[in-house]
């Protein structure tokens, strides 16, 4: 190799200052990237660790069977668990059929312009802050009638709708057209095609979207603050009254000076996170199923 004034940059046997500096820069940014990832994991570990450390000691039988305490007493979160379960369940019943139908309309029936308009509607709906949804439902339904679990569920359903609709629509788009064409070519009506052929193919993705939406909405406090926060300290299934819920309970206890209530808040948060984590695992399972199904077809 002939000697040239500046070494050939491709010749890695020659250490040029430029290359060394660039390698150092690369190492620095590599380190930054690793540290950032570690920081994120560290924060997660910190939050979860605190929850477990401070909350686990409260998780006794009393905690799960007694209702929330009145002033100066000891209690549990049984009524809030029941209330949350009922309200989230009702929200699912309200939101999922409508969301799936909207997605079906967008993907199977609507023209491109209408579809795009609806996508904008859903995105805007998704962007409405939860607190605004809360005061909307309050102003529309609670004023004059009183709070009730149904109104709380309705507020949560408004939050769930765009999430589930978007997830469903995206998975419907991925279902191969050949499936639809084959079904229609056999003389099956369009609606039966959608119901019996397309939806089952998409079910994995739909369930993933549903489970993610439920996990999100189970922890929402703001929509429930104005619609179902004045509830008796007793287990109740009367949906025409306000029912206590986990997030609102945590919110109330979080500012309390009483170490007992603070510990209850940690434990309730642990239960809530546990539920959310289980939902996330479930979502991953369904996503895996969806992938296997679509790859198989």
């Amino acid at each position, binding site marked *: 190799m002939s000697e040239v004034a500046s070494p050939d940059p491709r010749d890695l046997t020659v250490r040029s200052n430029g290359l060394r500096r660039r390698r150092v820069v690369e190492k620095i940014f590599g380190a930054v990237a690793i540290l950032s990832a570690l920081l994120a994991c560290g924060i997660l570990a910190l939050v979860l660790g605190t929850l477990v450390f401070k909350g686990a000691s409260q998780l006794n039988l009393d905690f799960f069977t007694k209702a929330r305490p*009145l002033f100066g007493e000891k209690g549990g979160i049984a009524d809030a668990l029941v209330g949350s379960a009922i309200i989230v369940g009702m929200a699912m019943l309200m939101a999922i059929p409508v969301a799936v139908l909207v997605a079906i309309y967008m993907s199977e029936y609507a023209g491109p312009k209408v579809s795009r308009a609806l996508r904008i509607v859903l995105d805007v709906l998704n962007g409405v802050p939860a607190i605004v949804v809360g005061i909307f439902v309050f102003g529309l339904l609670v*004023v*004059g009638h*009183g709070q009730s679990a149904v109104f709380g569920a309705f507020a949560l359903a408004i939050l769930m709708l765009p999430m589930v609709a978007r997830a469903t629509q995206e998975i419907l788009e991925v279902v191969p057209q050949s499936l639809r064409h084959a079904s229609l070519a056999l003389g099956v009506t369009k609606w039966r095609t959608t119901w019996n052929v397309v939806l089952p193919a998409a079910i994995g993705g739909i369930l993933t979207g549903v489970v993610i939406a439920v996990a999100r909405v189970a922890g929402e406090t703001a929509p429930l603050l104005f619609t179902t926060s004045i509830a008796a300290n007793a287990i109740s299934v009367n949906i025409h009254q306000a029912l206590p819920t986990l997030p609102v309970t945590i919110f109330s206890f979080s*500012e309390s000076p009483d170490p007992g*209530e603070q510990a209850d808040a940690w434990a309730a948060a642990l239960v809530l996170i546990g539920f959310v984590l289980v939902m996330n695992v479930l979502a991953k399972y369904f996503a895996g199923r969806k992938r296997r199904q679509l790859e198989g077809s």
Partner: protein
Amino acid sequence: MGERGSTMKRALALAFAVVVVVAVAIFAGRTQSAAAKPGAGSIVGTGSTFVFPLVSKWIPAVDNALGIKVTYTGTGSGTGIAQVTARSVDFGASDAPLSTDQAAACKGCVVIPWGLAGMSIPYNLPGVNGRLRLSGPVLANIYLGNITNWNAAAIKKLNPKLNLPDKKITVVYRADSSGSTYAVTGYLSEVSPQWKSKVGQGTTVNFPVGTGARGSSGVAGVVKSTEGALTYVDAAYSITNHLQFATIQNRAGGFATPGVRGVSAAVSTLPKKITNISQLKIVDPPKSAGKRAYPISTFTYVIVPTSSSKAGDMRKFIYWAVTQGQKYGPPLFFVPLPGSVKGFVYREIKTIQGT
């Protein structure tokens, strides 16, 4: 394409029909649910966190005594007023009586006193050798931001024997609409002209300095976890959470505590016959109330629509609360209602009619 067009039109027509049917169902369901509300013997209320300790004791007791199930959450007096005005609850509890505008908005609500206690001023100063003494003007200056440090001259003057630290005062106030704020700002307006002109009295005011927290629980919580913090809260919260509270200088020159004796002394100068809520203002009592009179005492009220479907249960509940219910008060530093006030209460209860 014509066939598709007419299909589309019919589909749209059907869609509109479905929407109409669903909407009707929802509205019918709403009126249905209003009627299918909890049956007789069940009333829902919200409001003052100040009175929450006492109402907490009443709830199981009145269930035993009268079979009435009361649901109550502490959300702040302002919320109590707003929710009962909006008729989304059966009663509201507030330490602040209704203003003329609020009374007009509430459309026929009666305001009935059912509790009486003192507003303690707890603080967090570990290592101080004794209980803090404060006066009205000093407290006002602290809340105005004129006094910012615990070892300020004005505080030292009232507490010559205390080893006050060089520490910043963290003022804490109620961020939510609060009857406790109403009572304290009423007191501060009486003792400090600067407070009266700059801030004034209300359930929510523009506090010049400090940190806000929600509910009596919230302010007590901040004080408990912040060294140098100070706030105003119902005495029961200070006691239950082991917070040291200050003694406040009254017009007679004594330094009074917010206990049963202090508050009883404060109401000792009430007229024999009460005809109007405005006579129940007891902050900054006169010199004749004595050296024990606690200057920041307040009545707390229940606000009820005069005509409602729950009138019968409400009358029974309130009557029970102001008679038998009062015995639950003293352990929580609530003073039983004086006789002159009880007469007023009985007359007001009679105005609650059914629909």
